[in-house]
């Protein structure tokens, strides 16, 4: 019975998504998605504890043997991250209760939640599936729904952002599919486990196929996860989406493609082949460039949301750097970074949403003195900014510290310097906002608490608490992260 819970999870959310064309009532869809996410979070907790105690569940859909049918694998890795996505999704949903009624029209809200439900469906599928073609299908669902979410607020700027994102996304998907075809050509299988078994012998016979396949799949997923030279779409896309979905896109969706890269490297190619083909070196170079240049571009922005988007580009670099170790220790660090960054960047984007809807301004100059007008939101912004820079006590510090120690363990101190430089650059663009917000003379400014709807404030405080909880007691989630890393990369 418990092994069918993932299917219940996905069917539930899919049914909610399919309700949206039937109902244009925002209230109904809001409630449905809220209950759906609560149910999914509970199921997620049940699955994670079950997987931890008993071991992975392998589901063969339709009862076909694994060489024919699609397999779902629910292990510490996928259970952890589905719980993570539904938890963050639930919090962001609570924020949307206060935010969306001011930002979108009633009928748009209904279809927005429909699209969001479809997005969660794709995310769950992407994490569970053990089949390459199935992965492609879920990637396509995910990319089309994210583009639709970006274009949902009917503005000129959004159409163009969505169009660009759609084009690059589709290029990425096709490149991924070409890689899958090249693998299918030599292994005759789409099941990840079976491909990996085959590749250990086929790699010697068809090195060109395997190299090209890794190249195509890598470039395809790099485009979707905005790894530096392919980040072109991200600032436009993430800055023009409604604030709750910017938080979701930046905090969760971009990371998800990185998790797909993890699956591809560890479950399809295997670390042996990846190292023979120099994948770690390539990833390190891209990561370092992203870390430095993402921050440099962020320094030059005038719009707060674009600045945050460029900051995401540089953070993706950190995550990729952790992945480039291609070891269980590296994966642990990477997973922790993903959690930490989702909380921090979620807070930052949500605060921006509050300030934009409250002040109707989004240029960086308008943040001057905002600490007096919106003290609570700006405090959240400041604390999350500290987390992003890596002030001790926040999760950002623990995450960066872990990356540094992981690299010192393998005697590559150079990357620690890159980390420090990039953190200083981070400080250069977060601190001026915070300082301008609070330390300025308040003559003529009417100091009062902001009238932001309470669901938004509650969400913000939960996010900030999360940042400090992970910063002070990373041990709370560390056992789960270790289990997830071990199931991927083997016991270290």
């Amino acid at each position, binding site marked *: 019975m418990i092994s069918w819970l993932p299917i219940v999870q996905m069917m539930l959310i899919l049914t909610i998504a399919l309700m949206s064309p039937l109902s244009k009532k925002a209230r109904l869809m809001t409630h449905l998605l809220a209950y759906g996410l609560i149910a999914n979070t509970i199921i997620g907790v049940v699955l994670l504890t079950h997987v931890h105690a008993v071991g992975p569940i392998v589901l063969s859909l339709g009862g076909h043997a694994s060489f024919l049918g699609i397999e779902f694998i629910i292990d510490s890795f996928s259970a952890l991250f589905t719980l993570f996505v539904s938890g963050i999704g639930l919090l962001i949903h609570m924020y949307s209760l206060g935010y969306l009624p001011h930002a979108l029209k009633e009928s748009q809200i209904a279809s927005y939640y429909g699209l969001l439900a479809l997005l969660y469906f794709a995310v769950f599928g992407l994490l569970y599936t053990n089949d390459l*073609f199935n992965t*492609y*299908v879920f990637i*396509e669902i995910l990319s*089309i729904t994210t*583009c*639709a979410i970006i*274009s949902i607020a*009917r*503005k*000129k*700027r959004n*159409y*163009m952002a*969505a*169009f660009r994102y*759609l*084009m690059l996304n*589709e*290029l990425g998907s*096709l490149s991924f*599919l*070409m890689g899958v*075809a090249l693998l*299918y*050509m030599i292994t005759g299988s*789409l099941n990840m486990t079976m491909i990996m078994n085959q590749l250990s012998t086929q790699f010697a016979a068809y090195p060109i196929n395997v190299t090209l396949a890794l190249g195509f799949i890598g470039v395809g997923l790099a485009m979707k996860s905005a790894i530096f030279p392919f980040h072109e779409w991200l600032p436009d896309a993430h800055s023009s989406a409604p604030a709750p979905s910017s938080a979701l896109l930046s905090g969760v969706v971009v990371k998800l493609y990185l998790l797909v890269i993890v699956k591809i490297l560890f479950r399809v190619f295997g670390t042996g082949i990846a190292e023979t083909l120099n994948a770690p070196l390539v990833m390190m170079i891209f990561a370092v460039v992203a870390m430095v240049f993402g921050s440099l571009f962020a320094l030059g922005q005038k*719009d707060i949301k674009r600045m945050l988007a460029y900051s995401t580009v540089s953070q993706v670099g950190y995550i990729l750097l952790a992945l480039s170790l291609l070891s269980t220790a590296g994966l642990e660090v990477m997973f922790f970074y993903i959690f930490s960054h989702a909380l921090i960047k979620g807070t930052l984007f949500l605060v921006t949403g509050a300030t934009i809807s409250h002040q*109707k*301004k*989004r*240029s960086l100059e308008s943040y001057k003195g905002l600490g007096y007008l919106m003290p609570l939101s700006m405090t959240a912004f400041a604390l999350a900014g500290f987390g992003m820079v890596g002030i001790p006590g926040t999760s950002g510090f623990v995450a960066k510290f872990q990356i540094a120690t992981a690299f010192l363990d393998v005697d590559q101190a150079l990357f620690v310097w890159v980390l420090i430089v990039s953190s200083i650059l981070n400080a250069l663009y977060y601190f001026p906002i915070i300082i301008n917000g609070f330390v300025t003379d308040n003559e003529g400014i009417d100091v009062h608490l902001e009238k932001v709807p309470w669901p938004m404030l509650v969400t913000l405080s939960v996010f900030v608490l999360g940042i400090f909880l992970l910063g002070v007691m990373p041990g709370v989630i560390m056992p789960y992260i270790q289990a997830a890393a071990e199931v991927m990369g083997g016991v270290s």
Partner: protein
Amino acid sequence: MSILDIFVANIHFIGAMIIFVIGLYMVIAHPNLFKRIIGINVMSSAVFYFFVAIGAIADGRVPIVDGTLTPADYINPVPSALILTGIVISVSFTVYALSLAIKIHQSYGTLDQEKIVEMSTRDDSYD
């Protein structure tokens, strides 16, 4: 085996790659948004062709088992079945991209990327 033989033996795959690159060039180099959508479609056709060619064998039969032939005589039906899904995805992509293009044309009055970028940088207002 000479290079020519390798070329002839892999003509489907090499052809598919060439079409893929042509499509890629269209997407990257063309300023017209509509042509870019066509470019993506050319690329996806190339990938589909590549996939289907994997399953094909010379003088292969449709895979309906009648007991007289050995499995080696049938073409592999799995890639064709996968590509049906792929085509559906490609159609839904095209529909969405074209609807966006219509909206862009309504709001900017042109589909030329360069002109649109020029216009959108000119009104640099934040909402």
